């Protein structure tokens, strides 16, 4: 959590899209921005890019108000996937409330996915977060391409971890909202446990999700 200021009655959350270079993190945010109505969300802020590759981050902010009057801002970030931008990834990852790991389904990218996931684990630890407890969802993107790792293989590998898996083709907008919803739901559950959003602020998970994903 970036900040929670009870006096100001404002909670600021952070969700991070992580993953290897070119896996489609920015595309996910672009699609979210396309698919969702402008109510309750801000503009997509894409900080300087180089050849369309993220250098710093992209930011898509959401804003909603709980029945109690608690104002909740949710900032959704992408990190740069290129190995060399590790400092930036660390900086963006600080105080994250949830992470969507965007993997590239192409068989050729398996090594990069693994390396990036290990990098996520390492950086989470560095910023004082625990990969075992932070809300996490994994998206296998680019399902539209040939020579991708099979769903059966993915299932075999990841089911034992209990981490939810979402297939996607982000360019086409498929699986994008689903991924976001799963992440938002998991994040909400964890926040609710700690801050009693439903009991003290009258904000149910359904309300939360509905307000976050008003379709165009």
């Amino acid at each position, binding site marked *: 959590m*970036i*900040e*929670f*200021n009870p006096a100001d009655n*404002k909670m*600021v959350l*952070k969700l991070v899209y992580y993953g290897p270079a070119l896996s489609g993190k920015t595309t996910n945010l672009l699609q979210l921005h396309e698919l969702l109505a402008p109510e*309750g*969300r*801000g*503009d997509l*802020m894409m*900080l*300087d890019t180089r050849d369309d590759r993220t250098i*710093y*981050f992209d*930011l898509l*902010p*959401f*804003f909603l108000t709980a029945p109690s009057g608690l*104002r909740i*801002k949710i*900032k959704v*970030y992408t990190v740069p996937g290129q190995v060399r*931008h590790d*400092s*930036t990834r*660390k*900086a*963006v990852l*600080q*105080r994250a409330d949830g992470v969507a790991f965007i993997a590239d389904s192409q068989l050729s990218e398996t090594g990069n996915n693994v390396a990036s996931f290990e990098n996520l684990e390492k950086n989470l630890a560095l910023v004082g977060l625990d990969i075992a407890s932070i809300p996490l969802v994994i998206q296998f993107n680019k399902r539209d391409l040939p020579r991708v790792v099979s769903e059966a293989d993915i299932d075999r590998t990841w089911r034992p971890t209990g981490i939810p898996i979402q297939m996607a083709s982000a360019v086409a907008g498929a699986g994008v909202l689903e991924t976001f919803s799963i992440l938002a739901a998991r994040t909400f559950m964890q926040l609710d446990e700690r801050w009693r959003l439903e009991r003290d602020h009258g904000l149910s998970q359904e309300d939360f999700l509905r307000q976050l994903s008003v379709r165009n």
Partner: protein
Amino acid sequence: MSNVDCLEFLVGAEKELRDVLAASEVAPLLHAAVTAGAHRALVQSGREVLWQWPEDPVVATESPTCLMKALPLWLEGEAVGEVCVEADMTHPAHDALTRMLAAALNTAMNANLKRMLTTEIHTQVVNQSYEELLAANRDLTASEARYRELAEHLEVRVQERTAELEQTWARLLRQEKMAAVGTLAAGMAHEINNPLGFILSNLNTLQKYVGRFVDMLEFFNHRIGACLSADLQDAARNKWRDLRMDYLTEDVAELLPQCISGAQRVKQIIADLRGFAHIDVAETAPVKIAEALARTLAVMKAEIPADARIEQRLVNLPELKGNGALLCQAFMNLIRNAVQARPEGLELTIRGERCADEVCLAFRDNGPGVAADLRSRIFEPFFTTREVGQGIGLGLTVVHEAARAFSGRVEVHDAPGVGAEFVMYLKAGEGGDG
């Protein structure tokens, strides 16, 4: 950021309207709106008016068509303030003017926010990289220091090993030397003993013969001489006198016993040497401490000053197993050091007693003693406190080795009063390896 003592920039830290809009950007827009016909234009956050034009507004004109129109200013999806225009809103241009104003301000806010975020993350990353570089540098320096230490340590290790090798080498050399000396002594003793045997027995025989010659001469002198002619008697007396026969017969009686006792002393010295070097003793033979000490003192007779007093108090000592020659050598070095430490008026007490499973042999002298800072070094080979050229080492390494050969050790203490006390602790019962 809520955490005050945390100065670092946090990606996502909240911004206020004032953070993303500057007066210099807002004022010209508000001014332009008024110039275009609005009565008043302002930007507010909650109830607080942040900027307005004119700066001191006159009280609003009471006109039913003069209305206040407000449009939200968005920051990351949240309405953080509004821009308000007071104008005759029946005029369509004024409504458009308000929208234009809101659009311009929202665009400026977005642009500023983006610039700020870029600067902030850039600064953060640069700082972090710099700190990581510093940390890497610190690590490198530390590891370099470790390697340097290792290298220095290595040098010390090499020195230690070299010293060890030198000691081993010196020990080997000494053992070789002793073995050579032993062989030489054995050979010499044998070579000397044979002719010495002849010499001694012949001398004894010769002494008997000479006695008889002298008797015979006496007999001639006193009995037969009187029967000779006066001439012959004179000649015989003169000859006797010329040949100093009186002195000769007297002297020969002393010369021969002296020769014999001299030859006997040579015989004794050789026997002592053989005993000292343990030439005739099997290597496994038990070592008698008192005997070893006696032999050592015997061979050293010549170098121990006449005024030296050496007192032995050996009580109830068991026999030891080990190299007797080495032990004699050790005794000799201890005694020699005492003599050299106190060339005149030496009082050396040699105490020997059994304590538990050890034999404790203490050599206490009345010399100047051993300085405390030298005590750890005096057992090194070639260590000496004497001037260069006055012999190598104190021979204490041999003492140290002998003690070790008897599974024991040697220590040096201050003797009560003045002097030094060297104490050898030797293993009684089961023997040493030497």
